[in-house]
């Protein structure tokens, strides 16, 4: 089956994207990346903290991965654009996940500011992956602005609640001709598989892997679930029915007479 994920003209080896926050150590993070075979890996930029471990996270990301900086910490388009420019100037490439969050309680993104930042960064030749509330009109605006994919949330960041936005994700997957990458809220491999069955092109997971008891095994489980969900979506799954339908033949065995109760 020729089922390649292409984003901005580049073939992406895995439909499972992995975030790097909250891991207990960088070596553990690296092992999780390797176990999942994720290709796109997200990182963030912060003011340096002299108290923290002074290791370079980039040293622990395998060289064949594609590093995508997020703009977390940005509260508006201007701040997101600034972070993107710094990331690129610092040598981290031009793939950027726009994440603009003015709300600290639910960490929900600001779609209007995200559209604005996308318009600016696309003109500066960034490959822009915007993290948004799943809204069809806004997804179309982002598509028109030149976004490389749309990253709608499944549930608020770090909640592990799964694809609470499933109806909207399904609509985006059907209507938007860009890869839909479900980002945030995915807590279990079954959630990831569900997102893929709905027609998502990929999923991005961080918290559920990094905070699991065994992040390496969890990363691998997510990766397998994403593959399974994708294959199922492409296979054209059977539809649910209200009435039972025997999977074994009901005739030609003893003399059973079935009474159908209508």
């Amino acid at each position, binding site marked *: 089956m020729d089922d390649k994920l292409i984003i901005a003209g580049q073939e992406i080896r895995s439909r499972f994207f992995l975030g790097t926050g909250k891991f207990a150590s960088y070596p553990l993070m690296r092992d999780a990346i390797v176990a999942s075979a994720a290709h796109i890996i997200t990182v963030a930029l912060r003011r340096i903290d002299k108290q923290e471990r002074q290791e370079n*996270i980039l040293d622990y990301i395998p060289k064949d991965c594609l590093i995508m900086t997020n703009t977390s910490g940005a509260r508006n388009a201007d701040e997101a654009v600034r972070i993107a420019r710094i990331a690129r100037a610092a040598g981290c490439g031009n793939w950027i996940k726009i994440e603009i969050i003015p709300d600290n309680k639910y960490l929900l993104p600001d779609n209007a500011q995200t559209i604005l930042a996308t318009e600016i960064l696309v003109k500066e030749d960034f490959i822009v992956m915007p993290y948004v509330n799943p809204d069809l009109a806004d997804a179309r605006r982002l598509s028109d602005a030149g976004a490389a994919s749309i990253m709608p949330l499944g549930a608020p960041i770090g909640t592990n609640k799964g694809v609470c936005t499933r109806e909207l994700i399904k609509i985006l997957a059907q209507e938007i001709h860009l890869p839909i990458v479900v980002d945030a809220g995915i807590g279990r491999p079954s959630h990831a598989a569900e997102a893929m069955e709905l027609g998502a092109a990929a999923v991005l997971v961080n918290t559920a892997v990094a905070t699991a008891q065994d992040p390496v095994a969890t990363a691998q489980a997510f990766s397998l679930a994403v593959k399974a969900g994708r294959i199922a979506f492409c296979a054209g799954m059977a539809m649910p029915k209200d009435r039972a339908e025997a999977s074994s033949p009901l005739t030609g065995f003893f003399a059973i007479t079935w009474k159908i109760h209508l």
Partner: protein
Amino acid sequence: MLVRINGEEQQLVSLVNITTLIARQKIRPETAVVEYNGVVLSRDKWEDTILKENDTLEILSFVGGG
């Protein structure tokens, strides 16, 4: 000489370039990304960039994030 480093005002008593400043702060240079007055400064320019009054410096690093 007053400069602003990562949002905090700091008084510098002598002329200092970015390389020395980073070393004094006990920051490993290979982990640092420096934005100098709003422009990212590549590492090869740190030595020749001497801080002056009212400069604004952001010293950043890549960290884990989703």
